[in-house]
């Protein structure tokens, strides 16, 4: 028996009184929702993904969108999402692929944390007139310093490890060329260069047009080793080994052949149209000792001039794993929480595997401190950082800096429709179709992204000033400036914070 079609996900309607038949909606929508026939715009709501491109382009605000216009019989367990997943799998017998980050309704720990501010004692600081130190150094810090005196001068004897210098603790995470468009990468690259911070290349190699920004780019080495050669390693400001990703811990990825166009094939160094398969593990890493070998091979290849980061997904044993990474010669550990975004991930992984970044960062920081090796690595938090308050909170929980991903895409127009995997992103971000890519103008988008980083940086310094803190280093791991609001005792123990009122 046929299952039949599932109800409409979105209903688009056009206000005929407002519509002036300009046809911009028809041109805007790569999914084919609109068509103009005679003196009327006709709609096919079934193919709509709620990307809002038509709505943002309509000069008369004539288009409206309603989510789930058809009710299912309501039920707290058998939600429409659950039912539709079953219909899909009953029809296909396959694994469901989905886009963006975790869509499960888990409580957000960030939203149950509140920050402190000064009153009466320990006066707050006005960032307008007082210098606020947000500069952040990522990399190994020496456990002690040795000096010697040469002709009356004191000279540092300790050899320092290379560090990255960030003007703000906000970086942009790894989104590869292939997953996102070249215009999107260029916009991000120009923004981080402008802001004095860094971005990740993802595992898709480094396109020639990004070479001018290479001093602000962290090149990634993932299990597929796409685009990795000695030139690539030498160009990056730092090198990041990707072990795992918060959106799909424990599994690899594959860029479908249809997204491997001529230019993508060139930076990934694989034939046009072939699948780019990143296996789940690195085939030269089967233990923490092997990881050390890969870290050292990268350092040796670049003559120990570049910091090497290791990125892991936040999972149950993140703290112990991070302690291993801290002893591997790596300079920073990136922890990607279970809300991290992705172009495509199996829905079951995206929604059910991994742990929240808040708990992972706090436990990693605590573990490294308890073992006396916190100075060996910096901690970079990523996955679900939505606003400056999240940045302040995760730094107070022990992170040195953050990677943002989705937030930077939203700054370029992304509406979080979660349909990246279709490769038809109407905003020119998650697509390689030339006419769609051309919609994203790096001249404007780079300003938008830089504005966002700048605005968050301002807010962060205001939050710090209000708490009487004038240096980011004094906020780092400063759990006393956090309180848990309606968090249970176990979580508060993991985060090592007190409850509100205590």
């Amino acid at each position: 028996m046929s299952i039949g079609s599932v109800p409409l996900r979105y209903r688009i309607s056009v206000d005929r009184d407002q519509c002036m038949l300009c046809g911009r909606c028809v041109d805007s929508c790569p999914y084919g929702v609109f068509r103009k026939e005679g003196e009327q715009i006709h709609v096919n709501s079934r193919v709509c993904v709620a990307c809002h491109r038509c709505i943002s382009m309509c000069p008369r605000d004539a288009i409206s969108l309603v989510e789930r216009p058809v009710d299912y019989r309501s039920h707290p367990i058998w939600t429409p999402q659950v039912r539709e997943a079953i219909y899909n799998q009953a029809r296909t017998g396959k694994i469901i692929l989905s886009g963006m980050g975790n869509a499960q309704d888990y409580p957000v720990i960030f939203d149950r944390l509140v920050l402190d501010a000064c009153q009466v004692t320990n006066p707050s600081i006005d960032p307008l007139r007082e210098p606020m130190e947000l500069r952040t150094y990522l990399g190994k810090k020496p456990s002690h310093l040795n000096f010697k005196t040469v002709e009356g001068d004191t000279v540092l004897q300790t050899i320092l490890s290379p560090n990255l210098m960030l003007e703000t603790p906000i970086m942009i995470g790894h989104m590869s060329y292939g997953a996102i468009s070249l215009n999107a990468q260029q916009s991000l690259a120009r923004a981080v260069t402008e802001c004095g911070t860094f971005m990740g290349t993802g595992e898709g190699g480094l396109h020639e047009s990004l070479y001018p920004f290479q001093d602000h780019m962290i090149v990634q080495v993932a299990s597929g080793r796409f685009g990795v050669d000695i030139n690539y390693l030498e160009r990056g400001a730092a090198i990041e080994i990707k072990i795992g990703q918060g959106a799909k811990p424990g599994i690899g990825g594959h860029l479908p052949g249809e997204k491997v166009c001529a230019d993508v094939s060139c930076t990934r160094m694989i034939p046009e149209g072939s699948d780019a398969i990143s296996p789940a593990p690195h085939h030269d890493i089967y233990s923490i000792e092997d990881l050390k070998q890969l870290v050292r091979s990268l350092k040796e290849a670049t003559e120990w001039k570049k910091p090497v980061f290791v990125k892991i997904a936040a999972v149950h044993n993140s703290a112990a794993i991070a302690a291993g990474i801290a002893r591997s010669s790596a300079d920073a550990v990136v922890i990607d929480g279970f809300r991290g975004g992705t172009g495509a991930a199996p829905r079951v992984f995206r929604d059910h595997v991994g742990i929240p970044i808040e708990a992972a960062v706090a436990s990693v920081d605590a573990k490294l401190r308890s073992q006396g090796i916190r100075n060996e690595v910096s901690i970079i938090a990523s996955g679900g950082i939505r606003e400056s308050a999240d940045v302040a909170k995760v730094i107070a929980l022990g992170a040195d800096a953050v990677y943002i991903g989705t937030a930077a895409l939203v700054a370029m127009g992304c509406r979080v429709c979660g349909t990246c995997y279709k490769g038809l992103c109407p905003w020119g971000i998650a697509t390689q179709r030339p006419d769609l890519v051309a919609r994203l103008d790096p001249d404007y988008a780079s300003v938008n992204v830089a504005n966002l980083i700048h605005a968050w940086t301002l807010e962060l310094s205001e939050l710090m000033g209000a708490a009487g803190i004038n240096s980011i280093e004094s906020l780092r791991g400063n759990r006393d400036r956090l309180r848990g609001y309606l968090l249970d005792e176990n979580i508060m123990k993991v985060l090592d914070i007190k409850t509100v009122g205590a």
Partner: protein
Amino acid sequence: MTELQDAIRIDTSGMHYTPLNRAIRAAVTSGVRRIHLDNIMGQRFIADGLRGNVEIVINGVPGGDLGMFMSGPTCIVYGNCEHAPGNTMDAGTIVIHGNAGDAVAHSMRGGMIFVRDDIGYRGGIHMKQYQEKRPLLIVGGSARAFLGEYMAGGLILVLGRKGRSPLLERGIGSGIHGGKIIIRGDVPDWNLGVGARVDKMTEEERGEINPLIEKFACYFGLDPQPFLTDPYSIITPSSARPFANKYTWEV
């Protein structure tokens, strides 16, 4: 170090790999064309990320990741190799007068590796090719399980010298989606990994491998004749999209 015009000799006894690689780089920069490394014993990462037109003669047993990210040089090893020689190698040649460990030529994207005897598990894993870059791995002896796993490009040739079967185990070409594995003799289906298929060699393919076999024989002073006329099996992907049928979109 003994200076000989454009060749130098380094006694590496007790030397850590970092100063060793530093000495190699300095020599290459100063125009040295041949470097003899004596008493090598387990130093990892030799010639890691090294560029240039230089021949490195390695006397002893180098540690893992020999010639990793290497782009141009030739390494000739008189001894066995640890795991992953030619890891993510870009260009150049590695010649091994002996055996090599697991993951030989891992993610190799260009250049050539010749192993006189046997290799370990997962040889040639995820080798890939692009335009004129087509990596080549020739194994004189036999290979262990999962040869050419995830292979995306390039050529692996296993000769099965010394009367041994070239392949003793299962999982050949598991997840292969590009490139070619050529094995002397017959390959029964149970040896194949998921996504791999086996065919008889065509005359055209024989024309392609014979010069490579002669090159191999020349490196090791062997007689190529027995390998030039024997039957070979060709293992290729059964699909360029091995994972295409595993997924359905959410919407």
